């Protein structure tokens, strides 16, 4: 439900270890809303989100510790440097790991300049660098490929693949066609909104 409109109902799916779940649907069909419900930021009008058989509301700490969520807004403070941002977002990671992740995403040389000097794509890369350093099993990504260039997209794709091979789970929305083998990509289609 959003603004009194039913966006989706009777939706049920299960995410297994080692799988990528891609939420598909037209603009305004509720992809972002679904992801926000899955993270627990937004309560569902009806229905439940279960994590290991328990509703996520009852185990906020455990679920929070297992989840990396990167939303529309990258969650980057513009006065801070990429390294400071990363260190705050991923407190469990070491400085070397953060540096390595930033270098991997082509941000070496920018570690110490404040993020307001970076381009949209570079900011997105800083946000996505979390995926390298945060070893959390569940990734929920809202349009992770927005404003990334080809090279960035392929790097993130490879990262997603490596994550699922290690037994992680990915739920994402994107309009991007996966170039990878689609064996592990499951699709959930949100119906077109009734006018």
């Amino acid at each position, binding site marked *: 439900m959003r603004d009194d409109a039913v966006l989706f109902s009777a939706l049920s799916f299960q995410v297994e270890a080692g799988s990528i779940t891609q939420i598909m649907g037209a603009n305004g069909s509720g992809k972002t809303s679904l992801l926000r419900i899955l993270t627990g*930021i937004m309560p569902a009008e009806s229905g439940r989100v279960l994590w290991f058989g328990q509703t996520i509301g009852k185990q906020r700490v455990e679920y929070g510790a297992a989840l990396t969520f990167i939303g529309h807004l990258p969650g*980057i403070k513009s*006065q801070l440097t990429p390294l400071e941002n990363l260190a705050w977002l991923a407190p*469990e990671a070491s400085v070397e790991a953060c540096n390595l992740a930033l270098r991997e995403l082509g941000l070496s040389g920018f570690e110490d300049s404040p993020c307001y000097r970076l381009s949209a794509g570079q900011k997105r890369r800083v946000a996505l660098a979390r995926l390298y350093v945060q070893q959390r099993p569940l990734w929920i990504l809202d349009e992770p490929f927005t404003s990334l260039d080809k090279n960035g997209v392929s790097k993130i794709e490879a990262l997603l693949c490596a994550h699922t091979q290690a037994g992680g789970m990915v739920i994402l929305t994107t309009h991007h066609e996966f170039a990878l083998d689609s064996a592990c990509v499951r699709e959930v289609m949100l119906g077109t909104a009734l006018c």
Partner: protein
Amino acid sequence: MLNPHPLPSEGKAFVRLLMRDLVAAFRHRSDWMNPLFFLLMVVSLFPLGISPEPQILAKVAPGVLWIAALLSTLLAVDALFLQDYEDGTLEQLVLSPSSLYLMVLAKVVTHWLVTGLPVALLAPLLGIMLNLSGDGLWVLTLTLLIGTPTLTLITAIGAALTVGIRRGGLLVSLIALPLYIPVLILGTAAVVAAVDGFAYQAHLSLLGAMLALALVLAPFAVAASLRISLSN
């Protein structure tokens, strides 16, 4: 199955957020300069508007300084949660496994260190400008040191409730101002009592009690409000 790293303790998460916000505020000078300039402007305009007569200035000084400090708290409200809301870090904060109560407390403490503390420290200098006498000066500083954190905590509730609304600034004032009034009354009354040579300890105790109450309860309200604001 991947094993998540052991998470840092709550205390470390608190300090981490505190440091992050202090660094960000330090680099964003207008956050902490604006309240100070506002205080300076209001207080220096008063003698021009009312009268440069020292006796009259000494009489209005406690009220003027307290009201200016109170309004400067309101002026800085956007730095509290709105910036974090707009860049998405607030979402991350709510989702993080650390307790939101402590995270809110860290944000409020930083905000006070950046906006409230400088105002409380500048106020006695401006008090001298307004011919406030000896005892009144340090009681003024003391009341502001106890009172402005209470104001910041109250403001935080309003800010958290309105963070999802564009241009919620006026609404924050409407929510917070009625709650400011007891703090304002006690703060000015203490300074007036000190100037007149009466006992002011009772006022200070009451201000302290209000701070203790706000410090314990307000973060709960703020945390709940933030969850509501983010949920739509």
